[in-house]
């Protein structure tokens, strides 16, 4: 089916999220929609899927104008969508999830679950998914949940499939499998709109690329363009994708985790006897697919998660069992994963958010009263230093863009003399400019001789920022890759990818070496170290 968007405009209040966007997706084409976070990609797709009403413009399917009053209409017209955050009820089975909304039912609406199961099995067999229709969604790994979403769309005869940031939660290997699946779908005549901000994937799979910036189509690109070309089109200026940094000069071990264990709500370990040593002046990145214990590990270091065994030693002193305040006073700077809920208090002003951890120190208070002038003065200095763009320091922090809000959090956490810096997903959802800035500050902190731990699920970020990469899988560190020891081509991503699926470093390297000798490596791929 041919899909055409003509002059789609969507306005939220004063914000123009989509500004006269034109897009044509030919039948059986994989069309990538490339743009930064906040460029308006998801808004556009929600318009297409009937979740939002467009303020202007129209949608045509096979040249027939469409009017969608809700997702139901879009689905009926043959549009399927796999959302970034899966639209699956965690307590339902696979068959129930696929059937929901289109249930095969007999008299009085009694479900015919046998039919629903059969339906799942048929589609699952056609694409070799191997999915148990009676498995509960919450027990399935995210990669499999995504396949359930794809089955859901296909079971409604989707002719146009929208994939919204489908690779964000996948390991590199799962991503490869997804790319294969997309190829098969294309063969069977399905058009695919593939939304992403990851350049590598776009080049691997797309037939055509449309780039969106600030709600506008800024151009089409060919899949043969280089990553740098695509990036500058996406951002609107030339960008350097590599982090500019000197080799690390690590000192002595300053921070150590010894058999650190954190139990989850079900009593099973989410962080499983983790041993890790971090030297002064080096950046250790904890890589891994989301949900393998990295977040809990970071929270345990600050004391936000209770530990169930093991030691956390900072300069020889065990912090396990100490309160969060004691740990902050010991010199830990911490940037939490979810900036909007944990990193800042949305209804507090920028100035107040900058002293959340210092409000009770002599610097800002006298007795029980806070000194507003000193808080304001501090805010002026910090925002200047960290290049925060704002209208007034007394505005709520929620008025800032993601990048600026994150700079406020960094400014607060880095304003004290640190003995350890921990950041979880420090650049999630930021624009390229802010990412560069955040990376620069993190490297600067390292160069001051602070041990740094970064949790990130973005492989690009991990590879460019880390001095050493510790890969976590199911609560354990499966191996540590020393970036300095990697060859001139850098760290092999395929090795990291296998490790993220639980393969040990040695096995992963052996496997990649074997694969490489079996097939001639393409010139633009990294050589195993």
């Amino acid at each position, binding site marked *: 089916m041919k899909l055409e968007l003509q002059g789609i405009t969507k306005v939220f209040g004063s914000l123009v999220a989509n500004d006269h966007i034109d897009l044509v997706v030919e039948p059986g084409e994989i069309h990538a929609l490339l743009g930064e976070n906040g460029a308006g990609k998801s808004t556009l797709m929600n318009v297409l*899927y009937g*979740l*939002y009403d467009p303020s202007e413009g129209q949608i045509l399917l096979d040249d027939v104008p469409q009017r969608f009053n*809700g*997702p*139901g*209409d879009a*689905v009926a017209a043959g549009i399927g969508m796999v*959302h970034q955050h899966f*639209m*699956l*009820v*965690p*307590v*339902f089975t696979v068959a*129930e999830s696929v*059937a*929901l*909304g*289109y*249930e095969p*039912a007999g008299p*009085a*609406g*009694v*479900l015919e*679950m046998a039919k629903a199961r059969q339906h799942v099995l048929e589609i699952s067999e056609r694409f070799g998914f191997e999915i148990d229709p009676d498995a509960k969604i919450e027990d399935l790994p995210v990669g499999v949940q995504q396949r359930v979403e794809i089955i*859901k769309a296909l079971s409604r005869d989707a002719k146009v499939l929208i994939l919204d940031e489908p690779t964000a939660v996948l390991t590199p290997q799962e991503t490869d499998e997804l790319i294969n699946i997309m190829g098969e779908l294309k063969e069977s005549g399905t058009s695919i709109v593939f939304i992403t901000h990851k350049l590598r994937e776009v080049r691997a799979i797309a037939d055509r690329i449309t780039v969106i910036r600030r709600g506008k189509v800024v151009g089409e690109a060919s899949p043969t363009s280089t990553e740098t070309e695509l990036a500058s089109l996406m951002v609107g200026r030339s960008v350097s994708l590599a982090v500019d940094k000197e*080799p*690390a*000069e*690590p*000192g*002595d*071990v300053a921070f150590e985790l010894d058999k650190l*264990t954190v*139990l989850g709500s*079900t*009593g*099973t*370990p989410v962080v*499983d*006897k983790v*041993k*890790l*040593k971090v*030297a002064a002046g*080096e950046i250790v990145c904890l890589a891994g697919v989301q949900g393998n214990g990295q977040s809990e590990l970071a929270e345990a270091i600050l004391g936000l998660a209770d530990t*169930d*065994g093991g030691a956390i030693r900072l300069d020889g002193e065990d912090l396990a069992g100490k309160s969060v305040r004691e740990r902050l006073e010991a010199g830990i700077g911490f940037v939490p994963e979810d900036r909007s809920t944990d990193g800042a208090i949305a209804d507090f002003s920028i100035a107040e958010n900058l002293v959340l951890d210092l409000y009770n120190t002599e610097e800002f208070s006298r007795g029980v009263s806070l000194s507003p002038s000193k808080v304001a003065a501090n805010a002026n200095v910090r925002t200047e230093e960290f290049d925060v763009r704002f209208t007034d320091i007394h505005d709520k922090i929620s008025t800032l863009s993601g990048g600026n809000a994150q700079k406020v959090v960094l400014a607060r956490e880095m304003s004290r003399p640190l003995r350890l810096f921990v950041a979880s997903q420090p650049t999630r959802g930021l624009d390229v400019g802010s990412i560069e800035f955040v990376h620069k500050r993190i490297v600067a902190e390292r160069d001051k001789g602070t041990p740094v731990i970064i949790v990130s699920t973005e492989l690009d970020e991990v590879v460019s920022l880390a001095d*050493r990469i510790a890969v976590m899988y199911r609560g*354990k*560190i*499966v*191996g*540590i890759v*020393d970036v*300095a*020891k990697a060859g001139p081509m850098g760290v092999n991503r395929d090795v990291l990818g296998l490790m993220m699926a639980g393969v*040990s470093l040695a096995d992963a390297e052996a496997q990649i070496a074997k694969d490489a000798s079996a097939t001639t490596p393409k010139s633009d791929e990294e050589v195993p170290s």
Partner: protein
Amino acid sequence: MSTSTVTEPVPDTEVDEAVVGKINYRAPIVNALAALITLLVFGMGPTADAETTFQVSSGSTMFSIPNISLPSLITILVLGFVQLGAAAYALVLVRARRTVPVWLHIIVGLAFVISFLVYAGAGRSSVIPVTTLLAGALALSVPLIFGAMSGVVCERSGVINIAIEGQLLIGAFAAAAIASRFASSYAGLVAAPIAGAMVGALLAWFAVRFQVNQIIVGVVLNTLVIGLTGFLFSTVMSDDAALWNARQPLSTIKIPLLSEIPIIGPVLFQQTILVYLMYVIVIVLQFMLFRSRWGLRTRAVGEYPKAADTVGIKVNTRRVWNVIMAGAIAGLGGAFFSIGSGLAFGREMSAGQGYIALAAMILGKWNPKLAVVAALLFGFSRNLGNVLSSIGSAVPSELLLMLPYIITILAVAGFVGKVRGPAAAGTPYTKS
């Protein structure tokens, strides 16, 4: 380039004990506690030759069963050791990290209750009337069961229903007034669910349309109903009680054959149509919630409304209709207070049962079947207090009044695992 002095941590190769979750000793502890109370408190009561007599049959059954006399002390000791054995078995199970089966809890619960009855009736001339005890328990449970079903329908679709209390009360009022006005108890049976549905509609209007905090709306509606029915009771109803508040009891219908079965017959099958309707509602709800299109969509709307929206389910419409239906169910249950019990309407006659129904729903994990069991537990413990004080038991009546609440605490502490309600209950849905 690499001047690293850092020793790389090698992957953990030491063989050490697996890290596993903490063992939850709640089940064996609660079971052992029940056993100890049985042996040390109940066991100390009766003298060696005391007997406890249970009256099993009631006059109307086809088969006549003689009273059963048990030697008090021996019975208590045997039941106490049964509970102790169950506690030991539970301990073995949890140490082996296996789950403790439900039947074990049921055995302990039954043994505890029976030994309490034996203790309370030991050495007395009066008998313990088993049929009366159970029939009364069911009667006290009826409004609770209706209320809990109302809560299940409402919360499964994502709206918290604190207004069960108000819906029960207005049901009782409407049933009494309309039955009296038209001199037909069946007219009251029609009016009660309509009145309850109206309160449900108000709840839906505020909670879904205006997204007011659902708990606050519920409490306000309860206050509104108390005020409204109280006002009408002291004005219209008192002015012409013969017209507006005359007793119109629903008649008892005996189901042929079934009502002749000893114990079960008189308890379950000599009831009014309201109780038979309750059986139907529970069974239909249990089936529909988990096996029908309506149930699947309702649960989706209560767990993850956005997911439901993306497959074309109208979340708020579904919620509104379910809340109204839940109101109707609770309203019908309210009729039990007035016409179902053969009484005229009395001020605040629901007496907080709506809140207990809510507790039964939570105790029953938002599952109709289990909520019925929980409601029966409350009804039984309340009636146990009534029956024991009427046969003149040694146990002080104030203590007996506490029974339902003690049982609630024990049940919540010991027998219910982690409860997880519908994820989106209480959260209004808006398209973002």
